[in-house]
């Protein structure tokens, strides 16, 4: 009888121990994901600043490229436009530094890919624009793609010569 009772207790203890180990092993990968998320956040923040530097350096090229793109996407206006290949906006956002094209830029991090896109959100009535810079970033260790968006407010001022 003593043996039966002890075996039952031992079995219960082992089941509890196994479930504890199982819980523990499930919580461990969270730390790896946490680190990856922090790395992605900080990296994207830096990349957005580089993209913003480009906009600040060439604001007129960006606006021309965007307005040309708006016309290009309008089926009525499109036939009247000169067919550039690639389009000016595509050129604007195709720099290697903004699209995973510079070797060693991310070292020692393991980044699978990233892309940068610019969007112009115009408020014509108020001559105000918001420039949206979006970074799509995918680290190598997981399949998740993180998207980061930065909106910069700008006012359009026409200078008459």
């Amino acid at each position, binding site marked *: 009888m003593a*043996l039966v009772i002890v075996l039952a207790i031992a079995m219960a203890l082992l089941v509890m121990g196994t479930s504890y180990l199982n819980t523990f092993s499930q919580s461990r990968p969270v730390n790896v994901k946490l680190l990856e998320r922090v790395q992605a956040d900080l990296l994207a923040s830096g990349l957005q600043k580089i993209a913003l530097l480009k906009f600040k350096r060439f604001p007129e090229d960006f606006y021309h490229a965007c307005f040309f793109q708006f016309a290009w996407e309008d089926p009525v206006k499109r036939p009247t436009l000169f067919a550039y290949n690639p389009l000016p906006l595509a050129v604007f956002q195709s720099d290697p530094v903004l699209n995973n094209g510079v070797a060693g830029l991310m070292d020692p991090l393991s980044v699978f890919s990233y892309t940068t896109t610019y969007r112009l959100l115009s408020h014509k009535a108020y001559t105000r624009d918001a420039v949206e810079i979006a970074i799509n970033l995918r680290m190598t260790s997981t399949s998740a793609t993180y998207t980061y968006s930065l909106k910069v407010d700008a006012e359009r001022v026409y200078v008459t010569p």
Partner: protein
Amino acid sequence: MTEKAGTTLIELILAFLILVIAILSVSGLISFGHRGTQKDFRMVQGIQLLQDTMNRFLVASSTQLLAAVPGTTPATFTTAVVGIPLGKTQVGTTEYSVSAVLSRQTVSFSTRELDIVTSPPDYDKNDPSTWRFSASTNRNGQFDGVSLPHRVMKIQVIVEWTEMLQNMKRRVDAVSFAVDFTP
């Protein structure tokens, strides 16, 4: 006279042995789990330290950061730089070592410029059908320290600590960029 069934000494010893083995196994499991939890806790502390240090770099003056690394060779800092504390720091019972590698990053940008010269005579600034863009995409957008001064600083922050029980070095790092926007 009737015989009563009892528990023999051998049965008691066996039961006791089984109980001891089971308790030792479970306590071993709990101890292993506890060590793992502490290891994870140290990792989380390391990540927090990493994030905090990098955030300090990202809000620091980019001009000062660029001045701290005059050449193109990456510089490793293990003591405070531009007011950001680096080096050894004690969090709880663990000693972390925080360092940073700063390097000037060359970036080049290309765009297609609006070309007024080759645009048709009826050029209208409000009508994209009258616009002509330059064939070349090579604008003066090379921040390489030659064409234009460096504006981008690559920042790598490294946090290291030692796991006491296994005497194993652990390390987490992050990379970001600081940009000098001054005109």
